[in-house]
């Protein structure tokens, strides 16, 4: 058993950490306050190949493994939740769906631009009436008409919809319902009838724009079907398995940053004649925070390792997401507590981290859904 990062992963982590310190974190507050899209950082990440990190080299990606993806998102999350979520939805949701289920022609056509960040992508599952329950909830339909699919319906919370060139949508193609009635479609966002609403007003992650999208007779060629017809739900769940490792890492990054900020603050602030760090009650908080962060990281790394070994990892990814995202909420809360009143002020980064962290146990499968995934595996394995 080997717990140290390889030289390649260490060098990658240090590089990304340096990049985030210089190009991402200094902008995080501005992005949060203004709701601007993090174009600067996203463009630079594209140039460095980070937006195609685990896309195979044959399609212009970097061909990196899942552990590298986890390292990337921990570092990005530590710098700016918004920037991290934009990259995550692009790389681990929209682009990943094409990597995993695209035909050779689709991969050749879409991946080079996506891997280099020239184009961004997103994944549209959620609808006004469908979130956790996609099978029964999805109303958006695609029906064949000659050489085309005609898509009608509405999506909700589609991250990157306003900036992406392509989104992958989960739509109903089989009227009989059930788990074999949904399909994935690649939809260019400039197709007539694809209408993107304004960015939703949210509690945090203000620079990661999520939109309501309406689909009114959106026509795409038959060849835009991704993977197999009526197998869209199974495909989606596989994409989400991988995405959960990344979102867990993103949450871990937020937690780490909040913990570091709290530790530093506790060293500087004095009460009752000694620095906060010397009060046992504060040390206990720091101990809980650091321990849960460590546990989450080990679970994320293990899920990533299983995926890279080609072994089943659904349960482990769900466990990692569950622990890491709940850890992020716990740690950001405690970080504010250690800051006292200042923690509640926008002057301190922990206030933003607390709000950003809150999404992590909801998006890409809620905590409750993670427990359902884990539970189902436990009783059937």
């Amino acid at each position, binding site marked *: 058993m080997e717990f140290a990062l390889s*030289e390649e992963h260490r*060098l*990658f982590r240090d*590089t990304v950490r340096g990049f985030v310190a210089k190009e991402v974190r200094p902008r995080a507050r501005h992005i949060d306050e203004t709701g601007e899209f993090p174009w600067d950082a996203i463009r*630079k990440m594209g140039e460095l*190949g980070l937006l195609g990190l685990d896309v195979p080299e044959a399609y212009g990606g*970097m061909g990196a493994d899942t552990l590298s993806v986890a390292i990337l998102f921990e570092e990005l999350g530590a710098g700016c939740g918004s920037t991290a979520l934009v990259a995550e939805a692009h790389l681990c949701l929209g682009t990943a769906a094409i990597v995993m289920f695209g035909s050779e022609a689709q991969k050749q056509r879409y991946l080079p631009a996506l891997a280099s960040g020239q184009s961004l992508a997103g994944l549209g599952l959620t609808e006004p009436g469908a979130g956790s329950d996609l099978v029964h909830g999805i109303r958006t339909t695609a029906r064949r008409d000659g050489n085309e699919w005609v898509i009608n319906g509405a999506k909700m919370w589609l991250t990157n919809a306003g900036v992406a060139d392509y989104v992958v949508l989960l739509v109903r193609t089989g009227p009989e319902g059930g788990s074999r009635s949904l399909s994935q479609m690649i939809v260019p966002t400039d197709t007539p009838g694809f209408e993107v609403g304004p960015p939703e007003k949210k509690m945090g992650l203000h620079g990661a724009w999520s939109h309501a999208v309406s689909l009114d007779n959106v026509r795409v060629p038959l060849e835009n079907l991704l993977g197999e017809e009526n197998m869209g739900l199974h495909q989606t769940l596989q994409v989400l398995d991988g995405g959960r490792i990344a979102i867990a890492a993103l949450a871990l990054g937020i937690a780490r940053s909040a913990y570091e900020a709290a530790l530093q603050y506790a060293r500087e602030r004095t009460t009752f004649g000694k620095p906060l760090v010397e009060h046992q009650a504060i040390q206990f908080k720091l101990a809980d925070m650091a321990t849960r962060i460590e546990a989450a990281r080990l679970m994320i790394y293990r899920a990533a390792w299983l995926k890279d070994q080609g072994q089943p990892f659904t349960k482990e990814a769900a466990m990692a997401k569950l622990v890491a995202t709940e850890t992020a909420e716990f740690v950001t809360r405690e970080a504010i507590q250690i800051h006292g009143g200042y923690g509640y002020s926008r002057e301190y980064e922990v206030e933003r981290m607390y709000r950003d962290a809150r999404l992590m146990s909801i998006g890409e499968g809620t905590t409750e859904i993670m427990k359902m995934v884990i539970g189902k595996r436990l009783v059937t394995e």
Partner: protein
Amino acid sequence: MKYVVCLKQTPDTTELPKITPEQALAGNEGATLVLNPWDEYAVEEGIRLKERFGGETVALSMGPESVDQALRSALAMGCDRAVRLWDPSFADSDYWSTALILARGIEKDGGADIIVTGKMSVDGNAAAVAHGIACKLGIPLLTQVARVVDVSDGRITVERLLDEGRETVTAPLPVVISVVKEINEPRYPTFIRIRKASRTPIPVLSAADLNIAPEEVGQAAARVRWTHLVKPEPKKRQVTIIEGDTPEEKARKLLDYLMDVEKVL
């Protein structure tokens, strides 16, 4: 053309405040070690020289195995090769001995047309090693280099950044140049380069390889001795930021402040 970049591994500057004088004296800082920030500009310039004028760029450092990490950063940015110089007798070498070891390393590696160093290291802050290398090799030294204008016909022309302005000078090759941060914007390595760098073997040259006797280096030969190290008191200053929509408004507020609050006018 061959370019050699001499670089050092130093504690991460964000962690410098944590280091105690005792740790610094013992050479055991307990901090994350990174490529000396000033040397990032040197590495970048070494790579740009290769891109502009052709040839090979070699990263060179004196230090124990942990220094491989800094050398790998240089490889990941785009250096072609890296060489490390180490021998137990090199420990505790001062600037002068370090310069001797680096100069011998350069000679052993077949010499260089342009040797690039950073302005100084963030831990030692001496800005002396470049001078030492030039002295040992008996070649010209150009400090404060902010731009390499040209390299041709066996000569280099650079702009030096001085307090009064910029000065353009020409020197024959081989030459040592020490560069300032105005010279470039260091690149970030791409993942593919990182992968390559992490697999590139880094040869180590020992005292015997470099023909260096134990009494020439290390504590034995040190001319500089650190006898007393103190940490400056952290500066405690009150900062007031004057807000305003226009420069005029800010200036008016500043004036009011200086006259009414500080009463300095």
